[in-house]
């Protein structure tokens, strides 16, 4: 074991501790982490996405992205990182389809069913790519709210017939282990944790009925909110900038399951609520809602949902 590798493992260990997962692995187990030969292979595809999950992935801090690429997983293809261009990419993906299996498939964005031409790569619809690649994968990760729960490409008023990855697998009768990591964009710590869990324990973390890791999504924003006491005392902010619970300005914290109030964003630099803005529910099944931030006493907000 060289010292560089040991340092890398130490930083990886910090992520695990930060994610509250220390009881699952011990440090010694991690030291026996994969080698070049058995590193898991990762294939990352963009559905109808904005690339936000990919750029968030680049922000992972405890370990550098280069360490991840060189020591943790083999990124066979990523649309924003790969030097491979054009036909080289199609060659890689066709090779995977016909000759390989056991890789991890990450999908960012929705899958348009009604208008398959709304998401193409190499003249083939994303529906075809997922149909041919998913059965070869060992597990699938729905990265971000679009792939996990619907999100923007499935918002009210869209016409492409966007499906989540889970819906699509059901629709195509493909049975594969799936993890859904909502949040818009996906949190990089969440995916690293899931990959580690699979790597070290050979299985996925415990999931809820929407395939979200219970560890991160069991509780709502509201349950851990810095204003929870104010909420209980009915001390509500009436304007942006007021101290107190933001419920009456549109906060979606009570209906949004996520761990933002524990780990924050961008290396715990900030959270939506700490920055004075109500939670807009970006990790929820109903994102985006018809009204988000609104005035105190806005009468429209009382009956504010589209007919679902």
């Amino acid at each position: 074991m060289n010292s560089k590798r040991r340092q890398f493992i130490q930083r990886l260990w910090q992520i695990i501790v930060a994610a509250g997962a220390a009881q699952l692995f011990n440090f010694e187990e991690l030291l026996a982490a994969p080698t070049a030969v058995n590193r898991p292979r990762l294939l990352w595809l963009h559905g109808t996405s904005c690339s936000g999950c990919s750029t968030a992935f680049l922000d992972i801090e405890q370990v550098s992205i280069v360490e991840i690429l060189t020591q943790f997983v083999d990124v066979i293809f990523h649309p924003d990182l790969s030097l491979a261009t054009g036909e080289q990419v199609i060659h890689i993906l066709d090779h995977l389809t016909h000759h390989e299996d056991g890789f991890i498939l990450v999908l960012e964005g929705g899958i348009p069913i009604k208008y398959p031409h709304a998401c193409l790569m190499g003249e083939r619809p994303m529906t075809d790519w997922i149909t041919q690649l998913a059965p070869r994968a060992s597990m699938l990760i729905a990265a971000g709210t679009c792939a996990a729960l619907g999100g923007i490409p499935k918002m009210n008023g869209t016409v492409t017939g966007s499906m989540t990855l889970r819906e699509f697998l059901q629709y195509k009768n493909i049975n594969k282990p799936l993890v859904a990591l909502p949040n818009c964009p996906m949190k990089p710590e969440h995916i690293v944790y899931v990959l580690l869990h699979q790597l070290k324990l050979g299985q996925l973390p415990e999931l809820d009925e929407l395939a979200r890791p219970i560890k991160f999504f069991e509780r709502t924003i509201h349950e851990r909110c810095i204003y929870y006491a104010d909420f209980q005392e009915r001390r509500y902010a009436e304007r942006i900038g007021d101290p107190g619970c933001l419920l009456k300005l549109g906060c979606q914290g009570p209906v949004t399951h996520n761990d933002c109030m524990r780990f924050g964003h961008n290396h715990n630099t900030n959270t939506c609520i700490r920055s004075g803005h109500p939670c807009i529910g970006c990790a929820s099944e109903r994102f985006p809602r018809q009204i988000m931030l609104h005035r105190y006493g806005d009468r429209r907000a009382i009956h504010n949902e589209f007919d679902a």
Partner: protein
Amino acid sequence: MMTRCVVDPMTRIEGHLRFVTHIENQVVIDAQCSADMFRGIEKALIGYDARVAQQVTQRICGVCPYGHAEAAALALEHAMNLRPNANGQRLRNLIVGSYHLQDYLLHFYALCALDFIDITAVLHYQGQDAGLLTVRDWVKQEMASAKVFPAAPFLPRYEAAYCHDPTLNLSAIRHYLEALPIMATLHRMVALFGAKAPHPVTIEAGGVTTIPSLDSIIQFRTWLIPVAAFIRGAFRDDVTAVAQAFRPYFAEGRGAGHLLSYPFFPDATGANHAFAGGATLNGQYQPLDINKITEDSVRSYYSDQPDRHVKPLSSRHLTPIDWAQFNHERAQPNGKYSWARAPRYGGAVMEVGPVARIVNTYHAGINPAVTSLVNQYNQALGLTLADYPSVMGRHLARLFNALLILDRLEQDLEALVPDQLGFIEQPVPRNAQGVGLTEATRGALAHWIATDDQGYIQNYELIVPTTWNISPRDASNQPGAVEQMLIGTRIQNSAAPIELTRIVRSTDPCIACSVH
């Protein structure tokens, strides 16, 4: 003999892009760009609360969400007849400015550098830098392995003429590795006042919801120090060195060179922008007139009529063609071929982006810092303004933008008042209209909003930077800006057309934005 050269998928850009060229005697004689992804966010916004546009439209793009957040807030402020106070404007500048810097580094290092820099040069590395040693040992190990795709995602690549200078190769690869944590730091700076990055929530019509504290200001300043050192040092050196090593690329990918930009980066009053709006046509600058903007969709995958000279907000529908019609259109020689529409300025095809900001601001003469930076580089590198709309000119102009924005960030940070709210609340306007103009790193961005009698969105329109650049042909069959840049290019090897991918990447396309 004519050959057909297709690049699909075009990687290391945002989103799903395909382009098809026809090549005769090694020269591109025709080119078509297809934006291959559609969500329909623009018209889906109808019926949502006016403030929702800010949160939803920034999710059009995970690379430049700040631009959409700002444009949406500006459009609604225009409809409200409201300007944020000085703190609100400064906070917005700090969020948007930091994000611009992150975006420039992402584009140059993660997306473009390895089109010029030879990554395999790392195999000969002999020094002590830990990052380079890790990469070297890893590449060696991978090449020796029996893997089908060794050293992915860095290989395979187009085998072509990369940089031969071993010093530049190694220092740029080292900076590639160093740029990643700097980019993460810039995202943290966005999060300090924006809550998170990507997709900061706090930019709202009326200002920014975050109250800056002395602590957060000090934190921002602490993080700005290594960022500023990297941009004024490594980034500046790398861009300048690559520009010198690839000098012929000041003549590649020129296109028509008509340049459009919107006013960007105001002072605390919301005026006196650092970058001028305007249009340069045939080298002649004119002030901005947004009434000249129209869109065609004759070659785009929509069935709505009219399909030409459509003004913003004049239609509430955007109807995609179905799968059968799509296949029919793709089979026609003159059929529809892109989800992007074709915006035009007084009928002209315009390039937007860093070059437009620099050249238009230079012509308008409003910012002495721009004038002196351009003069200095023109003299040092033997350039004229006409050389900027080109592959290398775009990279160089991005460096200028970064240096100028960095200076402004430092000023805005010093003037920010701690513990003072930068947000003014007003009810969402009823039966009102507004337009918001700003610049994403990749170019001129405009949002138009109309609200109904309850403050819900009655109509929304977006004309986005990459739509200008990547647009398909219009009603008079004029090719779009990037299509024009590709036509006339001489290529060495149509199996690895790196000349073409360098041109396309130099415009920093964002397909998710272009179609939305």
